[in-house]
């Protein structure tokens, strides 16, 4: 078997489940006569996706094409994700390496983490301006920051005591221990947090977009289509949003493959 055939074979169960799922959905909507505004058929969503993708056909709403809105939202999510991940990792390093700083700031971090962060979206709009991407990126950054920060901190500190004693028995300096033990030990924790953070970034971006800002984003496209009862269009935008989230998740998984060659093979 070629690599492709093997891959296809491993994907087969997922494909079957997908086909059955969408088939059942389509069938259920048709058989039970479910109203399109409650739940559109997959085929209607597919049609809407085609119509809305590059231009708005037959629409008087003036919502942005899905391709443009999707790219914009993906850009906000990805840039916010990158900034939040970088900041989470750096702060984890600072908090754990400089114990004084960590002890002083941890209560603040816990308090901030308990705050429902998307509630900040309107405030950020006021701070950074409605027309700027910055306010939405800031929401993504803050949402993504905590899982990365918390997991990476754990990885930097939860080193097996025997391993630390071993390093000390070699006369290793704290810096050597950081480089040779703490950082590689934290890598799996960091990469797990990346997998959590990637889809989260899209959620955060869209919710932030609901609170206003430029129109050519998936958030406003969804709210506008929904308020005019064009549910198939709204669902088409949701499909695009899911695809963006999935794409970022796959990138996170690829990063893991690349950075952790020692990893025991597992399903996802």
């Amino acid at each position, binding site marked *: 078997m070629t690599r492709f055939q093997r891959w296809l074979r491993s994907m087969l169960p997922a494909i079957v489940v997908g086909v059955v799922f969408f088939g059942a959905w389509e069938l259920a909507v048709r058989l039970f006569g479910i109203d399109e505004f409650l739940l559109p058929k997959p085929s209607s969503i597919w049609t809407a996706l085609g119509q809305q993708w590059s231009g708005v056909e037959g629409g008087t709403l003036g919502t942005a094409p899905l391709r443009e809105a999707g790219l914009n939202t993906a850009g906000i999510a990805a840039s916010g994700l990158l900034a939040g991940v970088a900041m989470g990792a750096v702060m984890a390093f600072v908090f754990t390496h400089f114990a004084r700083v960590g002890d002083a700031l941890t209560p603040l971090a816990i308090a901030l983490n308990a705050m429902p962060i998307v509630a900040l979206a309107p405030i950020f709009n006021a701070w950074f301006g409605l027309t700027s991407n910055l306010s939405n990126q800031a929401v993504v950054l803050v949402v993504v920051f905590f899982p990365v920060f918390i997991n990476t901190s754990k990885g930097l500190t939860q080193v*097996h005591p*025997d*391993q630390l*004693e*071993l390093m*000390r*028995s*070699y*006369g*290793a300096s704290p810096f*050597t221990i950081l480089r*040779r*033990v703490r950082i*590689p*030990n934290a*890598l799996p924790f960091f990469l797990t947090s990346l997998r959590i953070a990637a889809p989260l970034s899209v959620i955060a971006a869209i919710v932030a977009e609901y609170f206003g800002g430029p129109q050519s984003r998936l958030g406003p496209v969804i709210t506008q289509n929904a308020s005019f009862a064009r549910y198939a269009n709204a669902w088409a935008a949701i499909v695009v949003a899911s695809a963006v989230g999935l794409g970022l998740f796959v990138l996170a998984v690829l990063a893991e493959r690349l950075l*952790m060659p*020692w990893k*025991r093979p597992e399903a996802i």
Partner: protein
Amino acid sequence: MNANPADPAGTQAVAISGIHKTFNEGTDDEVHALEGIDLTVAPGEFVSLIGPSGCGKSTLLRLIADLLQPTSGHIEVFAKPAPQARVDRDYGMAFQTAGLFDWRKVGANIELPLELMGWSASKRRARSAEMLELVKLPDIANRYPWQLSGGMQQRVAIARALSFRPRLLLMDEPFGALDEMTREHMQKELLSIVAELDTTVVFVTHSISEAAFLSNRVVVLSPRPGRVHRVVNVTLGERTEDTREDPEFFKKATEIREALRSVEAAS
């Protein structure tokens, strides 16, 4: 393997005098772990520490390793203060958990201390290959630790501890997590490795038969605070599989067992 009384300078591998260790002194959590320990280990000797759980065996080993500082008393390793011996890398260590680094292949795990000592890559490679040969795992340099059984991991840990040829090996229940058969096998291998490299060993164990099989001397510690309760000299000559059925071996095991019983009864 034998103690070396003919050592010209009369240097001991380990010289422990008047060691007391109290954790968290002066607080509510104060633990008096060791009290008045005097013990010497001659070069080439294999000494086991045995005693009830919590009596301070691991603490004593960490004191020798300078991973802990004594509350009072003095420890010399090859006639140097313990901190100096640590910096000079005069000893290697192995624990119950093999403590291999997941992200390093077996070869790179063994080479880690050499890397920290600034050896060149080719010298490191040669030494780790040699060590793997010695622990009878010649073909696994490119595997990751998770691909090894517990016994194999422990062998790699021993190879790592001895990779830079320290004169002293400190081991804390290294075979504690292994099954009986693997354990007995590893005991024999350990003896042949330390004989080949002429290494002095201080070995912590819970197993009476393990102590009797491996050691020249077995030090029985009393329950907390740990003191040297009795020292059992074991003279069994060359260890073979038959040693375990030797009446002398049983006699020594019984002697250790009785020392342990009397010390537990006394507390």
